[in-house]
C-alpha cells in the first residue's frame, strides 16, 4: 500500500462506529426533534397554558387530516428515536453533535410547518386567542428558522468525509 493523501483518513474513519452509524444518528435526532417539538406544543401550549384549543371550529378538513397525521407521527417518533438512541449507545456509535444537529433540524422543521402551514395556511388553530397575533407568530417562526440553521450547521460539520 502506497501512502496517499488522505489515506490515514480513509483508514481511520470506518474503524469508528459513529461513522458507520452516521445516518442512524441523524434519524434518531430528527425523530426526537419532531417528537420533542410536538410534545412541548401539546403539553405546554395545549394542556398547561390553554393557549391552543383541542379543536377550533374554523378548522378545515385538510387541517384536521394534517394535524391527525402529525400528532400520530410525533408519538411514534419520540419513542422510536429513543430506542434508536439506546441502540446507538450499545453499538458505541453515538455521535452527540450529529444527534443534536438532527434534533434541532427536526424540531425546527416541525415548528415551522406548524407555524406556517398548519396555523396560517390551514388555520387549524392559532397560537393564542384574543391577543395581537403578529408578535407570537414572528417569535414562533423565527425560533423555528434559527433551529433549522443551527441544526444544519451541526449536520454539515459532522457530515461524512468521502
Amino acid at each position: 500500500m502506497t501512502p496517499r493523501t488522505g489515506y490515514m483518513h480513509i483508514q481511520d474513519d470506518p474503524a469508528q462506529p459513529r461513522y458507520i452509524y452516521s445516518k442512524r444518528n441523524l434519524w434518531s435526532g430528527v425523530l426526537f426533534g419532531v417528537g420533542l417539538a410536538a410534545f412541548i406544543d401539546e403539553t405546554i401550549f395545549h394542556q398547561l397554558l390553554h393557549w391552543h384549543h383541542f379543536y377550533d371550529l374554523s378548522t378545515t378538513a385538510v387541517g384536521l387530516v394534517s394535524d391527525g397525521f402529525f400528532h400520530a407521527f410525533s408519538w411514534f417518533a419520540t419513542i422510536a428515536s429513543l430506542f434508536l438512541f439506546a441502540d446507538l449507545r450499545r453499538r458505541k456509535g453515538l455521535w452527540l453533535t450529529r444527534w443534536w444537529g438532527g434534533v434541532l433540524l427536526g424540531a425546527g422543521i416541525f415548528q415551522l410547518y406548524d407555524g406556517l402551514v398548519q396555523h396560517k395556511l390551514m388555520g387549524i388553530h392559532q397560537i393564542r386567542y384574543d391577543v395581537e397575533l403578529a408578535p407570537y407568530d414572528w417569535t414562533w417562526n423565527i425560533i423555528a428558522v434559527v433551529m433549522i440553521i443551527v441544526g444544519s450547521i451541526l449536520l454539515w460539520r459532522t457530515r461524512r468525509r468521502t
Partner: protein
Amino acid sequence: MEHGWGHGGSSASTAIELICTLLYASVLVGYTLMGRLSSQHYKSWPLYRYICWYAGCTCSVVVIIGPFAAAAHSDFRIHMIGHLLLGMLGPLLIVLSAPATLLLRSLPISQARRLSHVLRSRYAALICHPVVAAILNTGGLWLLYTTPLYTWMHQYTAVNLLVHLHIALAGYVFTISMLYVDPVAHRYSHVYRAIVAVIAAALHGMLAKYLYVHPPTGVSTGQAEAGAQWMYYGGDLVQLIIIGLFCYEWYRVTRPRQINVKTALDA
C-alpha cells in the same frame, strides 16, 4: 333509554348476561388449567401472562354485561371508555397473554397441528395483514359513528352484540398484526408495521376530533365533546404502550451479537 338492551326485552338480556358470565368464567379457568398443566412438560408459564389474560378478559366482559354496560347506553362518555377497554386495552392485554402459544403447547399434537394449520391459513394471513387489520379496526369505527349503525346499535340487541363482537375481534386482530407475541402467518418488517400503525392512529385521532363537532344521533354536545376527548387521549395512551412494546421488540431482535449455533438450532 331505561331498558339496557333495547327491543330485545329482559329475557334476552338475561340470557346474554348468563352466557357471557359462563364464558368469562370458563376462559379464566381454562387458561389457568392449561398454563398449570403445560408447565409440567414445558418451561413454567410466566405469572404476568396469567395476569394479562385475567385483566384482558375482565376489560372485555365489563363492557358487554353488568352496570357499566347498562350505563354506556345512556352516557356517551361511558360508551367511549367501554370501547377503549373492549377494543384497545383488552385486546392488548390478551395479546400479551399469548393465548395461541399456550393452546399450541397444551393441545395434543394432532390438534395442535390442526390449530397451527389454521393459524397459517390464507384467511388468517389475510385478516392479520397490517393494512387489512387496520381497516377492520379503525375503518369499523368510522362506519359505526358516521352511519346510522350507531342508532341501530341502541335499538336492536343483535346489532349491539355484533358491534361489540366486531370491536373486540378487530382490536385483537389489529394488535396481533402489530405485536408478534404469538406465532403469525406472515411477518412484516418493523418499518412497514410502523407506517401502518401511524396511519391507523392518525385516523383514530381524526375520528375523535370529528365526533367532537359531529355528535352521533341522540348524543348531546357536552357528552360528545367529553367522549371525543376520552377517545383521543385514551387511544393515545394505549397506542403509546403498543409503540413502546413494538420498539422494544425491534431493539431485542436487532441486538448485535454473534450467532450462537446451539440456541439457534434449539429455537
